[in-house]
């Protein structure tokens, strides 16, 4: 018997009420700040950097970071900080859009497979297994090869690339939650099958996936940057973070900041989002007994 189970067992009549929320860990606070910063940059970039991301200044090309240009300037004299801030909308947009798309596909396939069972389940599961066997980036490349690079294609490509993994998880969740006592109890009360799915099966099956989705946003940002870096994502004049990396590649030997600083931003955002996702996972996991 563990200490905590003893503690709860000693007082069998636990008073109804909620415990005070614990103070979040410093890492969580820091991650939340980073994410908040990126969200502000995406929604209102002017608040953080008032210049234009495409303002060319041929007198100040390839300048190292300074007070005037905290991230330095690129080969056209554009302020890199302004470009990173203005790129947040596209990067975050691809991250969120791809994850939403992935989940829409995954929920459709996962629920259909788990609830239909039989031949439908077998076919969907096999298709997912084949898709899952491909690296997600390879699947994304396939989509881009068909549609040609653009912002929308990036979203579709990363979304389709990560959908199979989520679909498998969702199918497993649905199968597990369907066995739960409360599903049978709801059916025994005389609720319609669709009511049971909507009220009990869907929310409970999806609950652990909220955290997974948050992790997915971070991953999608990294993937979309990788695609842009390979010249397969958003085209260079745009300041999407992967495109910045791609543009800076030419000057990496002379102007390190063009490569390192956007890279650091991508890494920081990915870590922050992942860390928040993990926190969420623990919180939700704890609530789910």
């Amino acid at each position, binding site marked *: *018997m563990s200490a905590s189970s003893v503690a709860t067992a*000693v007082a*069998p009549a636990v008073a*109804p009420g909620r415990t005070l929320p614990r103070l979040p860990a410093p890492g969580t606070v820091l991650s939340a700040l980073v994410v908040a910063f990126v969200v502000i940059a995406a929604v209102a970039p002017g608040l953080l950097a008032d210049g234009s991301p495409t303002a060319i200044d041929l007198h100040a090309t390839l300048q190292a970071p300074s007070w005037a240009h905290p991230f330095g300037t690129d080969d056209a004299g554009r302020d890199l900080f302004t470009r990173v801030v203005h790129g947040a909308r596209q990067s975050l947009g691809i991250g969120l859009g791809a994850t939403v798309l992935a989940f829409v596909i995954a929920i459709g396939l996962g629920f259909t497979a788990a609830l239909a069972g039989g031949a439908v389940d077998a076919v969907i599961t096999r298709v997912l297994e084949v898709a899952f066997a491909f690296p997600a980036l390879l699947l994304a490349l396939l989509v881009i090869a068909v549609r040609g690079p653009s912002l929308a294609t990036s979203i579709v490509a990363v979304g389709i690339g990560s959908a199979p993994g989520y679909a498998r998880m969702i199918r497993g969740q649905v199968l597990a939650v369907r066995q739960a006592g409360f599903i049978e109890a709801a*059916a025994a009360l*005389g609720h319609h*099958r669709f009511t049971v799915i909507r009220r*009990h099966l869907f929310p409970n099956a999806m609950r652990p996936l909220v955290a997974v989705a948050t992790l997915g946003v971070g991953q999608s940002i990294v993937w979309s940057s990788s695609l842009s870096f390979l010249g397969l994502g958003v085209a260079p004049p745009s300041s999407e973070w992967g495109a910045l990396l791609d543009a800076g590649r030419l000057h990496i030997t002379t102007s390190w900041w063009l490569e390192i600083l956007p890279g650091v931003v991508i890494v920081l955002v990915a870590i922050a989002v992942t860390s928040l996702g993990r926190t969420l996972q623990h919180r939700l996991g704890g609530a789910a007994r």
Partner: protein
Amino acid sequence: MTTVEHRAVDQAAPQLDTALLRVENLRVSFGANEVVAGISFTAQPGQCIAIVGESGSGKSVTARTLVGLTGPGARVTADRVDLAGADLLHTSERAWRGLRGRQIGFVLQDALVSLDQLRRDGDEVAEPLRLHRWGNRTQRAAKAVELLTSVGVPEPEVRVQQRPYELSGGLRQRALIASAIALDPPLLIADEPTTALDVTVQAQVLDLLAASKARGTSIILISHDLSVVARLADEVAVMRDGHIVEHGPAAQVLHDPQHDYTRMLLAAVPSEHTRDSRLSAGGPSTSDRRVRRPVDRGRPVLEARHLTKVFCGPDKVDRTVVDDVSFELFGGETLGIVGESGSGKTTTARIALAILAATAGEVLLRGEPWSALSTDRRRPLRKQVGVVYQDPLSSFDPRWSAGRILIDALSTGGRPPSSRAEARDRAVRLLEQVGLTATHLDASPLRLSGGQRQRVAIARALAPEPSVIVCDEPVSALDVSIQAQVLDLLTDLQDDLGVSYLFISHDLGVIHHVSDRILVMKDGRVVEHGTATEVFERPRHPYTQELLTAVPRLRSA
């Protein structure tokens, strides 16, 4: 915390010199939480001391402390903990390893998790021999067979080659005991050794422990079950909130208890003697004796005709789990279905609920088709049949509060509430009907105690105003005092509302207490069927007779 009655404790240790184990003022705390609050007892060779209590009493922590497995974070203090004169309190982990198995044997409740799934049973049984460098490999293998034979395991030569998951619960528990007594330790600590077992197997395991005791082993038996204790113990110590509230010879504690708590515990045990009387003290009804509402012997409310259920196993072999089961349940009546694990009683309940389709046979509700209806045709009738499960928590959506659960159930009934306020009022009335209050409305079932959760589950079953409630082991997971309250609640509700119960349980005492008529099931078949008196007093089938002999009893009839 209340002050302890040390009177009985002091009386109970006259012959100190021969004592094998001597515990004085043992305290165990986890942080600020004192779980064992100064208990003392001595154990003589060839004697069994039972430590009895409900969950949270500190009995299991006591057992673990005596084998040095209290765990990290625990603070153990005592004036004295001696085993055969040697101090156990300041024993190093290394020295503990020398003691466990050789000096102290430890038998845990759940043999499935206590045995390593990947090792052969022979190796598991011989493990203490190997650890304490007893004999060589061949001698140990022979000894393992000998030990399994001594604990009554059939075909021991085959069993030593098998792995724990290939054995039944009873065989696993016996293998665990064989392992604990391998080196013939003078002290055996058994923590709920029979709790997960069927009664017939439980009887065999208790006989085994009695034989060990007769050979001079001193046994410390930890149990929540007073009737199990009655069968084996010489002395009984009743624990509550870390204190021993009563301690004395078994006969005295069980038949002439001095402490109120012991009296309450004993009164709460359902059996043939408690029929038509209340198990818990107080409660809404003032009279001690129940006035049973007469059973309506007209048309049966629920009728099962020749139910058969065949499951196809993973090995493509068909297994008949329910075999030609028929019964009638009348209005205001309780029909008990009793049987051991695997007897098909829960499957029968699920077919009666029409959650599971029978392979053959039919269930009728008020003389009309029920199991034969299509899902859509049956749905409007579902409000007539409620259900209460063994584990209420898993039957609640973890996101929902007690109030939302009840309001949802109300909406499925014949009179769905027309407004939010009405729904809330009726949910509160349901809570009050099952002995809870409006304050529980917003509580998450996660934060309720086991008894309160089962009350919410009963309230949910009542919400659509059903004529039948299927109760599948509704009190099996509860402490005896809470079990008593829930059983009283169920009988009160039956008297008030005239609802019928199809009551499934493995516990013959519970079944005898609540049932008007009883079905005894074995291997999917009904082996005996009759009124409670007929089945319990004049059992015809040998299996029923075996069951009844196997039940540990507090009092002789």
